[in-house]
């Protein structure tokens, strides 16, 4: 293979460009974190909320739909999770939800909760990503469940879906996980404290009040 001066120069430029891009991407991702926090003996990277759109921060909002107090409602289209409180209010959390094709809807119950849970990638995920290990220990910096998992069961049967933390705060507000509902780690810890075992959950394409903003019904199949 004969390399002309031109290709070498171009190739060099391309390499330089790729390196710079990688650095930029790394810097952007890193800034989603700010310092560390300790939870149950595990040190983890604290979310840099200054970097996160205010929209996705935990906040108390008005809530006019009809779900009863204590229910957790997930609006998958708008990437919000609501914990219904009294007087037509709710605590709203920003969430990341399943990519197109992984979306699921229905009623469930939080029947099990765990601290720094071990992560076992589901078989279909390991098929797509053979590089994944059989499991990742709880508390590992590579464990995508983060500090908490709340397991969603339907009539005592595990739906396979969970509320959990994240390694990628930048994915909150986006469709980017395999069906699970991911939250900022600080929010997963907060929600865990507020939801007793037996809490009712509804995962919806969108809440009734947001119907106007959700003209298109999702193609995803309900889990019934």
């Amino acid at each position, binding site marked *: 293979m004969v390399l002309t001066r031109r290709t070498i120069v171009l190739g060099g430029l391309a390499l330089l460009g790729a390196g710079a891009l990688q650095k930029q991407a790394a810097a952007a991702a890193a800034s989603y974190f700010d310092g560390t926090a300790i939870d149950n003996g595990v040190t983890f990277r604290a979310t840099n909320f200054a970097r996160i759109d205010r929209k996705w921060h*935990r*906040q*108390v*909002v*008005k*809530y*006019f*739909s009809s779900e*009863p*107090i*204590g*229910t957790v409602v997930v609006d998958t289209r708008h990437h*919000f999770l609501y914990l219904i409180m*009294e*007087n*037509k*209010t709710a*605590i*709203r959390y920003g969430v990341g939800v399943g990519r197109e094709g992984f979306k699921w809807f229905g009623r469930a*119950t939080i029947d099990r*909760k765990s601290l720094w849970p071990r992560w076992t990638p589901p078989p279909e995920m390991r098929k797509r990503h053979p590089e994944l290990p059989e499991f990742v220990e709880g508390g590992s910096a590579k464990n995508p469940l983060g500090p908490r998992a709340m397991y969603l069961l339907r009539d005592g049967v595990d739906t396979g879906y969970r509320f959990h933390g994240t390694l990628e705060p930048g994915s909150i507000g986006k469709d980017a996980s395999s069906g699970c509902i991911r939250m900022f780690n600080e929010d997963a810890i*907060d929600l*865990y*404290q*507020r939801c*007793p*075992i*037996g*809490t*009712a959950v509804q995962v919806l394409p969108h*809440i009734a*009040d*947001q119907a106007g903003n959700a003209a298109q019904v999702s193609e995803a199949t309900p889990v019934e």
Partner: protein
Amino acid sequence: MPATIGYTRPLMALTMLLALAACNTTDIASVEEPAAVPMTGQTNDPAPGFENVKLGSEEDFILNVGRRIYFTQDSATLDSVARVTLDNQANWLNSNPNWLLKLQGFADDSGSVAQMETLSQKRADAAMGYLASKGVDARRMWAKGYGKDREVRDCEDRSCKVQNRRVVSNLRTQRDAL
């Protein structure tokens, strides 16, 4: 937002009148809450008082600490989750020493009305004792059990029951007559 503020005061006055007029058992939230303002506006608007949450405010306590702890059936034992919430409450109360705290216990378990009253009082007392053990001056706190009264939700589903087995920590600026 300024438009909402304009309405708030007359609405509050109106609500208080309505609350006095409609004193019935379905008005469950009123024992835990300041008088409810009939909500106007839209879902996802900031709730009144939560537009700009200040450290040390009641809104800060609700949003960043949490007022409720839960119990398993027939139990007044503080589990590990309840203790974490109480630890957070104690830290907050110790940094904000001007607030008083009323602990309200509730029960919706198996047993007579009298047993439920006892259980709810035990729950409130357990929470108060724990906060005191974490440095919150006992003179700032008082505990009352409400038994089966004032259920959050009145239904037989498990998801209702678990909501009713609780202690709510309410910030107060002065003592009330229980």
